[in-house]
């Protein structure tokens, strides 16, 4: 097992790392724990909703909570994040209501929040495409003379995509203030990391001329510390860093994937022992920073949040058929004006006003 930066062992013990100091108070630690628990709870609820046909699919982040919360909480308000489609934990840190994430998976929109309001870009489904957008955005920040930095999320599979490699090139030659945060969860649907790279992913950065670091992706403290350092590096004008968060996709790629077809159960079992939330709980309990009252209150809050998500999901209205034609262009397009009118007239010839094709 290659070296990785760790500040909290799976058993919940604090350890030091020479390059990454982290000084967190009890309040902050409890805050991180709360983030982890709530993020996992929303994820579980969404998974259940999918099984019940309320969502078309769900991409579960189970097992990756620490990588996302740790890096998400390292961001300053003016920093900008470019996620893939699984960063519900980062969305949480950016203040995006979990319900807004569900719209995409329910099929009522392609992304239900204003990116500029939360400095959190919409989910990008094309693998790796967002890393170029992130790099361009960072180049823009550079031109503005802004203090901000950008974080680009992507998975181990994405590192094989041309766009990700082009992003590495652009970011390095232009010295763009972007942190490339790779969640290596070991699997790209059914293909293991060995199919994507011969060498540990963080070492790829060297070939492009910028630093790479591997961090324990299940250790929220290490992820926080390493991401903070990388962002600072970017802010100071030193260009990009590749952070490889070494973690595991405990669930399926998406809800109808069947991982039993391609991976061994004992692998899963061994990663359960490294659970990101368990170690923090253990640490809080052992140090007395978290007592039973705290855990109970958090459980109640989880239930409430889950109920909010469930209700909100079931109440989500389907978009109107004519909204198909909205927002395609900034300026009015005669063809769309014509098509919309014709379609409206056509719909009007039916007894029932809505088209038959709803997602149910």
């Amino acid at each position: 097992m290659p070296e990785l930066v760790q500040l909290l062992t799976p058993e919940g013990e604090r350890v030091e790392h020479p390059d990454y100091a982290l000084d967190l108070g009890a309040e902050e630690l409890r805050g991180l724990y709360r983030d982890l628990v709530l993020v996992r709870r929303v994820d579980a609820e969404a998974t259940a909703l999918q099984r019940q046909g309320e969502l078309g699919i769900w991409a579960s982040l189970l097992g990756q909570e620490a990588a996302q919360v740790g890096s998400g909480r390292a961001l300053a308000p003016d920093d900008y994040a470019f996620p893939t489609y699984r960063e519900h934990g980062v969305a949480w840190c950016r203040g995006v209501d979990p319900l807004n994430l569900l719209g995409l998976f329910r099929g009522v929109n392609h992304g239900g929040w204003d990116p500029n309001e939360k400095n959190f870009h919409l989910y990008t489904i094309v693998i790796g495409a967002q890393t170029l957008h992130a790099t361009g955005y960072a180049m823009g920040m550079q031109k503005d003379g802004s203090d901000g930095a950008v974080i680009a999320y992507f998975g181990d599979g994405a590192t094989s995509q041309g766009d990700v490699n082009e992003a590495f090139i652009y970011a390095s030659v232009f010295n763009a203030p972007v942190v490339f945060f790779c969640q290596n969860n070991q699997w790209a649907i059914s293909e293991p990391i060995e199919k994507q790279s011969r060498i540990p992913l963080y070492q790829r950065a060297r070939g492009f001329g910028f630093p790479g670091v591997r961090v324990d992706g299940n250790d929220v403290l290490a992820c926080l510390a390493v991401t903070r350092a990388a962002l600072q590096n970017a802010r100071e004008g030193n260009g990009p860093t590749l952070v490889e968060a070494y973690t595991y996709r405990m669930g399926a790629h998406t809800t109808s994937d069947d991982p039993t077809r391609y991976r061994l159960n004992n692998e899963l079992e061994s990663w359960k022992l490294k659970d990101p939330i368990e170690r923090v709980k253990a640490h809080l309990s052992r140090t007395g920073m978290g007592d039973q009252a705290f855990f109970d209150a958090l459980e109640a809050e989880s239930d409430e949040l889950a109920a909010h998500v469930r209700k909100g999901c079931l109440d989500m209205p389907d978009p109107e058929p004519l909204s198909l034609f909205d927002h395609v262009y900034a300026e009015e397009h005669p063809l769309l004006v014509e098509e919309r009118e014709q379609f409206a007239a056509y719909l009007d010839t039916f007894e029932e006003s809505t088209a038959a094709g709803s997602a149910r």
Partner: protein
Amino acid sequence: MADVKQFKLPDVGEGLTEAEIVSWKVKPGDTIKINEIIVEIETAKSLVELPSPFAGVVGDLLVDEGSTVDVGTPIITVDVGGAGGAAVPVEEVAPQVAEAPGGGSESDVATPKDDEAVEPGLIGGPAPGGRTSVLVGYGPRMTSAKRRPRKDAGATPRTPSAATAQQAVQTSMMTTPTPVTEPDVHEAEPAASAHGRTVESQPDTARALAKPPVRKLARDLGVDLAAVTASGPDGSVTRDDVMAAADGSLGSRAPVARETEERETRIPVKGVRKMTAQAMVASAFTAPHVTEWVTVDVTRTMELVERLRTNREFAGVKVGPLLVLAKALVLALRRHPGVNATWDEATQEIVVKNYVNLGIAAATPRGLVVPNIKDADTMTLLELAEALNQLTATAREGRTQPADMAGGTITITNVGVFGVDSGTPIINPGESAIVCFGAVRDMPWVHDGEIAVRKVTQLALSFDHRLIDGALGSQFLADVARVLEDPATALLW
């Protein structure tokens, strides 16, 4: 406080209508979690486990094991009130969700089930709402072959206000002209009225509006579109409009004749008359015509006709000697395919047709038309009879279509119906031979060495001597005659 929910039997896939409750996995009073398996049902395809959409306490099992119920029937009640509604306890979730849907085993990769059915929720397996599971969304749905009910029957709007839409945008696209070095710059016209309409309601005075086929018809009939009164949609000229204008020699609807001092009557040459004249001239002055005659004893043919008239298969079908002649012609062509050909002056080729489109010249209210029976050589006698009937009836009603008249390879002209014996028919352009069929008369004839009264007729064959020499023409005509004289000859060929 209790909040009792009912779980209704869902359609787990493929438009299921009912299922049998095989075994309950929970009992009243059990506390269950969301997604906990509560029952096993049997569908037409497989055994399916159903997960609970509720968490709470099981109330009643509403259906007994072994019963079959319809989709939508409530099968279990669950009290979800009190314990946080539908919340999923945290500690349970991680292991539960992490387990492979098929159930985790200690070591090996679990192999997919041996039977054909895929687990609900897995790729290819049943998904809620009657869909089939896919990796990236709800999955495909079964559709039914039924239309949605509409308000008025046939209320299909025809590109309605697309015009106004275009108009609106056109006004937004206007500006003063640019100085362009290319010649003849056209101003972006503020008058959007002519531009915007997808529907053409204002034809330029110089140009008539008509569908392409109607334009062609007008041209073929020599009708000037611009002079025709248009009665079609959007001010267009219709086919009927053109036909009405073309009316040259229609029976009771005689063309307007200007009478001048009763010594002459002038009839404008239009329509069918014009086309006929053109065809005749084209044929007569291009192909060197030779005509040969033969007189035939057709008594046996007439006897055959009688027998066919009483034949059950031919019930309702008009049968006459023309039918037998048509058949004889087709058979003779098989022996002399060179007659079923045409002279291609442009390519300097003789084109032998491998099919017989048999034309029958017909006098109709509109004039002379020559519709043909397509692929007459592939028809049985009955089919030929029916085709002849059809052709005649259509022609009589004046409804013969241009397509019916195109592509003929040989023609019969029946002058016998007028009581005439024979003639020198003009070949139909595009063909190389035409048979003239005379009246069938009782005539004195030598039969078995003695004078007898027999049914006798004359056949004349005009042919194009560029490609058909006397020998060929004669042999062909002789063969036709042979069949008419003794229909049994056909059996020999």
